């Protein structure tokens, strides 16, 4: 398939599915209550899906050759995680996480 066409199909399909997910209970199923098991399962989508997305980004260090060498990203992410847990602020998480990474990269 032509790469440009494929990219646009991804944009349209993902955009449409995202919009329908966002619209779902606000408009389409507005008069229905969610099945209890679905409501229970959806509560865990952010924790599961976002963690699965984050872990490879943190574990994969382009500079490190071996899996067991010191990876400043893991340490910086741990610090940022603690900050996020207590402050619930994206700004503080971003600030301390990036600062920690820069410091660790400078000293290691």
């Amino acid at each position, binding site marked *: 398939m032509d790469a440009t066409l494929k990219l646009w199909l*991804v*944009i349209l399909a993902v955009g449409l599915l995202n919009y329908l997910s*966002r619209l779902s*209970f*606000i408009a389409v199923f507005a008069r229905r209550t969610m099945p209890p098991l679905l409501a229970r399962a959806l509560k865990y989508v952010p924790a599961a899906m976002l*963690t699965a*997305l984050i*872990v490879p980004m943190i574990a994969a260090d382009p500079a490190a050759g071996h899996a067991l060498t010191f990876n400043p990203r893991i340490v910086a992410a741990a610090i940022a995680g603690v900050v996020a*847990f207590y402050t619930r602020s994206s700004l503080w998480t971003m600030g301390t996480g990036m600062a920690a990474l820069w410091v660790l990269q400078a000293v290691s």
Partner: protein
Amino acid sequence: MRRLLASPDFRAGFVEMLPACIGLIPFGLVCGVGASAAGASWLAALGMSAVIFSGAAQILAGQMLAGGAPLAIIVLTCFVLGLRFLMYSAAMAPYLTALPPRWQKALAFLLTDQAFASAIRRFNASNDPHAGAQHFLGAGMALYLCWQVTNMTGYFAGNVIPAAWSLEFAVPLCFLALVAPLLRDMPNVAAAVVAGVAVVVLGGLPMKLNLIAAGVIGIIVGTLADLMKERWTRR
């Protein structure tokens, strides 16, 4: 339109989102860089940020496109990632039932992780659905504008950002800011830990299928843990 822009609730929502917008600048830049790395034209890059309007899905789609994954797998993975919008939608629905359908359709488009968190706080604070809706519209528009500008800046100017800044690290940090505060109850911790381990263990799967597999396993474990916890506390 002018009356809307002048409304104090719209303005309050817009202003309340500005700190979150600053936090999103690096993420938006990285998304723009990612679109350019995936070989997108500027119009397609704008299409990604303006139509998909979800950083997680944009990053993932870009990576999977660059890795040559089939269209169906890319769309399916992004769909599962976007299932969290179903939950946000259900949580927002009771506050929006009083609004006309065109308001509902517009507000749904602007539903994101950050806008959701802010809107729920606002709706809990007052009972006026129109004021809440205008507040949400203001917050959503601030995020939407910021997202388009930062994505385009990343697309055109991404190559001037020094690699030593490790700007791509901003992406996991953005999600960490959303996930870490959730880890206050056992089922959420179980879902996150299992998904995190599974995505590494299943790393050998092709086409990034480890992501969707780990996510689904984590959701199942979280749900089971929730059911067990309820049974335990009921005794």
